[in-house]
């Protein structure tokens, strides 16, 4: 056994239990007080199902946009030195620091029907605030740093000489991207995607301001949790929360498995 392992293991398990497992187990206990039929009934209502579809769709869409934009941004920040790069680099983290409600209110003011961007867009027939599109916009804002920050170190480690060598050997730009860069980037890219997705699935503060909160149309699942709590329906709220938690957990678990596999695809011990 490694020296000091019992102590460090003990500290780790205690810390994780206190900070993560205990609150989550309370949630499961709250849900566990429901009978199976009541649990299904709480989830099967059209309004709850609509909110799940919306939350999942918006979180997936936003994670995809954030991943695509994140790759571009990370690439530029790593590969192209330009004046003010450090400044732009530190801007990336702002969505982490900004209270999400502030982000939501700011986006709504900008994209609302009388906002700076909302008014010209509305004249073009494009509605952003109070539509699912607005929800995706808020979630992209929240999710972007996850994508950029997970890709940056990997890109920094990639030696441009490898790409040059591939080019010398006659690879096209497309081939270089698909066969040289992508395999290296994929794990980090997927991590950023899943983090942005998991975060977006549970995001509440920034979304409720811009979504309009219409049942069946723009009502996200976390808002429905709040609504149920305010109606003193703790069990119903816990049921929705448990499902959201399970989806996020499965997503992150699948990602972990994939990363383990891609680090060692043959499964042989090294």
């Amino acid at each position, binding site marked *: 056994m490694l020296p000091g392992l019992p102590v460090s293991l003990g500290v780790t398990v205690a810390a994780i239990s206190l900070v993560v497992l205990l609150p989550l187990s309370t949630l499961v206990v709250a849900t566990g007080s429901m009978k199976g039929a009541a649990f299904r009934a709480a989830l099967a209502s059209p309004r709850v199902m609509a909110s799940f579809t919306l939350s999942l769709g918006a979180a997936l869409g936003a994670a995809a946009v954030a991943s695509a934009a994140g790759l571009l941004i990370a690439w530029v920040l790593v590969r192209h030195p330009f004046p003010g790069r450090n400044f732009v680099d530190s801007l990336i983290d702002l969505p982490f620091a900004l209270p999400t409600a502030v982000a939501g209110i700011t986006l709504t003011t900008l994209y609302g029907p*009388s906002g700076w961007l909302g008014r010209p867009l509305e004249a073009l027939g494009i509605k952003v605030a109070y539509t699912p599109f607005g929800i995706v916009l808020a979630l992209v804002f929240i999710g972007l740093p996850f994508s950029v920050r997970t890709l940056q170190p990997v890109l920094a480690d990639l030696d441009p000489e490898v790409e040059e060598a591939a080019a010398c050997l006659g690879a096209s730009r497309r081939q270089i991207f698909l066969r040289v860069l992508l395999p290296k980037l994929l794990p980090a890219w997927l991590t950023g995607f899943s983090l942005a997705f998991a975060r977006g699935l549970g995001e509440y503060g920034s979304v409720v301001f811009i979504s309009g909160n219409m049942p069946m149309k723009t009502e996200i699942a976390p808002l429905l949790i709040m609504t149920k709590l305010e*109606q*003193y329906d703790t069990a119903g709220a816990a049921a929705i929360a448990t499902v959201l938690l399970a989806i996020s957990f499965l997503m992150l678990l699948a990602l972990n498995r994939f990363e383990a596999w891609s680090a060692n695809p043959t499964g042989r011990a090294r």
Partner: protein
Amino acid sequence: MAAFAAPPPVSASAPAPPPLTLLNVSYDPTRELYQEFNAAFIRHWKKTTGQDVAIKQSHGGSGKQARSVIDGLGADVVTLALAHDIDAIASSGLIAKDWRGKLPQGSTPFTSTIVFLVRKGNPKGIRDWEALARPGLSVITPNPKTSGGARWNYLAAWGDALKKNKGDAGARALVEGIFKNVPVLDSGARGATTTFVQRGMGDVLLAWENEAILALKSPGGDRLEMVAPPVSILAEPPVAIVDRTVDKKGTRAVAEAYLRYLYSPEGQSIAAQHGYRPRTPEAAKVRAFAPVKLFTLESVFGSWEKAHAAHFADGASFDRIYQK
């Protein structure tokens, strides 16, 4: 940690009485009212007892506030948007079940009603509840599932149709028509006011009368106009002492005096200044309230319990508007 280990020095002669603090957990639009009322009560309490009292306020959607109190927010008094929310706290055992009988007027020191706030000049010519269901109109109201004010909005429209002998089917059609015109459902009254006044959404805002009066005085208020419908609901936001908290903290006397002071001439006058309809005729002279024919919730819906079960519970009539 050392600070906790060493007890603070205690003067041997006169043990200073512990500082009195009250926490008033209230609903969304009462911020300004209680700021002024608290200052008045602090002066009154100092004058009559010589004691200093500090009062803290907490505001939010009525249902959310009740939820926080049930979950352990140590409120000495609750002043919420509707009796149903105080009943919910009472059923958790924190407040005696007979709380409504403990203070005059069903523990409701002032009342309000629901009015319309429209753009200056009333360009859409909105005068009554029926006009709200006109196709193409845009109506702003918070979500009745989460906002006390919005429940009064909903019930006022429903009651108006019943008063016109249109029956339940007519009332349902009117309310459905109105909510078909709602583009945004904020979770609380203040959020809806912001959407209407600041963001410029909608042709009409369904608002507490006091919230409408406040919005007219706020920046941007000069571009708005209040329209009082001919008929509306008598909104009764009640108050109660949280028995469990005051007994533990020993603040029952001051909490009771605080709520009773709402019924005093000064309390009533402050309420009237902030646009709440006072109970005493003297205070009612503070401002001219629009002549609206008011009906009580009990006269139309029986009780909050019945109104909630029929309209706001999961799967009840409000949910059905959206699930077609």
